[in-house]
């Protein structure tokens, strides 16, 4: 399965395309696409220039777990620098 991710234009924050076609800050809110659909949806969001700086596809496995070659990179994007427990999304998840 694929998820569409990007960096929000205004502040660069990591975002994921959600089911209601909005940008969500949590991977758990992301919409999953199969390969065939993913590319056409990506094409459609990439032209929403005023929302995101960059959008691309990432791979997720069952239950939305980050998978594939870029899993570590995407995990770090999802949660913030591994060397700063106080920064990134770790805080939000603790609540």
């Amino acid at each position, binding site marked *: 399965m694929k998820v569409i991710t990007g960096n929000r234009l205004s502040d660069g924050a*990591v975002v994921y395309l959600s089911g209601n076609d909005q940008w969500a800050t949590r991977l758990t809110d992301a919409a999953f696409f199969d390969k065939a659909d993913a590319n056409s949806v990506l094409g459609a969001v990439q032209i929403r220039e005023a929302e995101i700086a960059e959008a691309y596809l990432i791979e997720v496995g069952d239950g939305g777990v980050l998978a594939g070659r870029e899993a570590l990179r995407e995990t770090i994007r999802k949660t913030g620098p591994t060397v700063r427990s106080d920064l990134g999304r770790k805080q939000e998840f603790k609540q």
Partner: protein
Amino acid sequence: MYRYDEFDATLVKERVDQFRNQVERRLSGALTEEQFKPLRLMNGLYLQLHAYMLRVAIPYGSLSSKQMRKLAHIARNYDKGYGHFTTRQNLQFNWPALVDVPDILDELAEVEMHAIQTSGNCIRNVTSDQYGGAAADEVADPRPYGEMIRQWSTFHPEFSFLPRKFKIAITASDNDRAAVRVHDIGLRLHKNDVGKVGFEVIVGGGLGRTPYVGHTIRSFLPEENLLSYLEAVLRVYNLSGRRDNKYKARIKILLNAEGPEEFARLVEAEWAQIKDNGIDLLRAEISRIQNYFAPPPFEKLAVESVEMNEQRAVDGDFDRWLRVNTVAHKISGYAIVNVSLKAIGGIPGDITDAQMEAVADIAERYSHDEIRATHEQNLVLPHVKKGDLYIVYKRLKAACLDTANIGLVSDIIACPGLDYCALANTRSIPIAQRISERFANLGLQEELGELKIKISGCINACGHHHVGHIGILGVDKKGEEFYQVTLGGSGGADASIGEIAGRGLSSNEVVDAVEKLVAFYRHAKIPNERFLDTYRRIGAEPFKEALYAAA
């Protein structure tokens, strides 16, 4: 210190206004990311993994207290309370919002700072020996030359679209503190037989995918010809450097394709043409710039400070800090203080807003308002009276900036790596932290002596791994982090590129590997021999054996 003239101030102001307008158009969607990206990069604004990153230039590494306070202010109000000093004497903010960047640039302009020449295929900010105007061993102050190069290269129309980025570094002593042999152009200040000041010009060094130690193409260039000669080198490169392949576009590739002699001949021929075209500054202008860097009003002091010696006798930690972190000053009774940004287990080069303010306060009161950034990701207070060293030490200690490890095993250079960088293969910082913790004992570190570990998270080599006595390069192996160890590199006067030791190691193995190498060195060294010298004396093989021996 150099102050902006009206021309500079207008230039920077216009650039900020222009960028503010571009950001507005980008936010409205009028500019696409594709159109905007080159514009933001020209203003030092990158997009990294979690956010934008703004790279602020610190030309030749010189900062005033006021400028440092401004960086603290930006870190606190627009970022997440810290900044990161890089191997290019820049400061990076890791979390600025695009909407705030024009305001940040305005704030920087208030203290004559900017983010120009921190990105793109132009002549980047010149880097320098950090002890300019202070070191006992300096031939001449390198900063006026840095400033001349800054003025000449900023927005130079002919060189704003080079085949690739272009880095110039200057060192002011035989003891190379600016890694001049691994830059596109390295300049070493020295005096010729009749005592005239000039430069050894070294071209075609560089790290990255194809590392090279540079070649000396001119052993003595009179100081007054600096700019015309640089222009000749740049012209040869701009004309003949490859533009078809990004990885073959640096001057090092051209120089090695032509051969150093032929390259030198081309430069000399070009120089003969342009030498008298008025590129070089007139003597009066050189003196004017040198006057900006006139020494501060030093006091007449005894060589030794009784007070300092009393304190070092009773405070062992202070004594060690003096031995390890201070350097001889050219003026009697003064010392150069290195401020380590490598706390044990900390993030190399990171500094909090409060620490920036502490350094600014100390510099204002005890170092003639001067601060320097080093390419090894530390800071320097260049002019401290020996009698003030104890209070300076105490105040640094209160700010957790007293780690006595300059040049030692835990003074590790590490690039941001996969914790921040969009280009990274692997993380660098956690490896640095774990090595630093493994060798936490400062007494042991001092006993080990100079040992330079440098870590890069990808082949771009921002962490200078090729010139580490022990270099560590992150490589991606099917999505897993692996690390390749290189041995025997040096970025100093005895520059060399490290050799690959063998198969890649996992992140756990690599920390053990460093420990094994160090243990072997302790066993193999002769008294007072540095790690690098032992390696050079006995060769790679025994080190490799020690590294890969079954546990």
